[in-house]
């Protein structure tokens, strides 16, 4: 499997992140003895976090450029005033950085989500989203969306597994699931228009109530 098996970004930059990137590069950098321009980012916690969110680009000439970078970086480490100019070239560094996510991590997250999903009859996004953010540095929005699609496969597998045990009631699933799909569409639309902060506390109370009811039922 090539190292670019899991490569994010497809050469595109999320528009909303472009300005965050500028903020970070505008930050005064500490002097570091870097072996590559990317190492500068590696040592700056803010930049490292940012890099994770900015995802990565594909540069086929990555290897060829590496020697140039080393030269550039050593010069930058010596001359502080050139570092800001060098940081402008930081774009090039990020662009060349190949961000590869361990396949093993993804599979482990998938298995954990699967256990959780079948055990509780939920999607598994509850566990997959935090794990994805924590271990693959995907942006929250992307992690949520990606886990949503994964849940489709997980839930389908769960349905098949439980159908073999004669536990799935198709009539009830349609009765609740189909109105819910319409409701979710409406709810998501509503979420864009109103502030849900105070409502969320109310919803948490409602959930707690449901939990207590399940405990005593």
């Amino acid at each position, binding site marked *: 499997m090539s190292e670019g098996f*899991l490569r*994010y970004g497809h050469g595109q930059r999320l528009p909303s992140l472009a300005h965050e990137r500028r903020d970070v590069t505008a930050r005064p950098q500490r002097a570091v003895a870097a072996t590559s321009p990317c190492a500068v980012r590696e040592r700056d916690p803010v930049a490292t976090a940012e890099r994770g969110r900015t995802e990565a680009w594909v540069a086929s000439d990555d290897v060829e450029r590496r020697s140039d970078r080393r030269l550039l970086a050593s010069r930058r480490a010596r001359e502080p005033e050139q570092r800001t100019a060098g940081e402008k070239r930081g774009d090039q560094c990020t662009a060349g950085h190949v961000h590869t996510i361990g396949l093993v991590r993804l599979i482990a997250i998938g298995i*954990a989500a*699967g*256990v959780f*999903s*079948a*055990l*509780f*009859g*939920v*999607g598994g996004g*509850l566990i997959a989203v935090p794990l*994805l953010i924590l271990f693959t540095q*995907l942006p929250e*929005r*992307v992690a*949520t969306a*990606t*886990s*949503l*699609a*994964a849940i*489709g*496969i*997980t*839930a389908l*597998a*769960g*349905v098949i597994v439980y159908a073999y*045990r004669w*536990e799935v*009631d*198709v009539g009830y*699933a*349609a*009765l*609740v*699931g189909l*109105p*819910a*799909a319409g*409701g*979710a569409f*409406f*709810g*998501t*639309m509503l979420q864009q228009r109103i502030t*849900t*902060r105070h*409502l969320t*506390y109310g*919803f*948490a*109370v409602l*959930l707690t109530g449901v*939990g*207590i009811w*399940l*405990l005593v039922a």
Partner: protein
Amino acid sequence: MTTSTIVVGIALGLAAGVLSGLFGVGGGILFVPTLVALGLGQIEAQATSLLAILPTVAVGAANQRRYGNLRLRTAVILGVSSVLGVEFGARIATSMSETTLRRLFAVLIFGVAAHLVWRTTRARYSDSS
């Protein structure tokens, strides 16, 4: 299924959908109690909930794909590897008594409620800073 069950089911399903869209929680966490309220056993409710979340998930994923947030390849790897876990999870669930499972589910709901409060509070702090 009586008429009243159907009416209550549609109403609760609609409400669960709106709430899950509004607060960004998964449908399953709301479907399971809904199905239990409609008279299903815990394990049956959980299995049925998995089928019930499929339409919502399909609509949601299609939307997210349009917004460009979806990493399809990652999703497929996650989803396919989750199949291994699903079999394991189903075995644990069916080996437990329904009461134990229901109590565990209640604990899960408390966890979700706590997470919602934490997330909202954190968002408020980061807004004000």
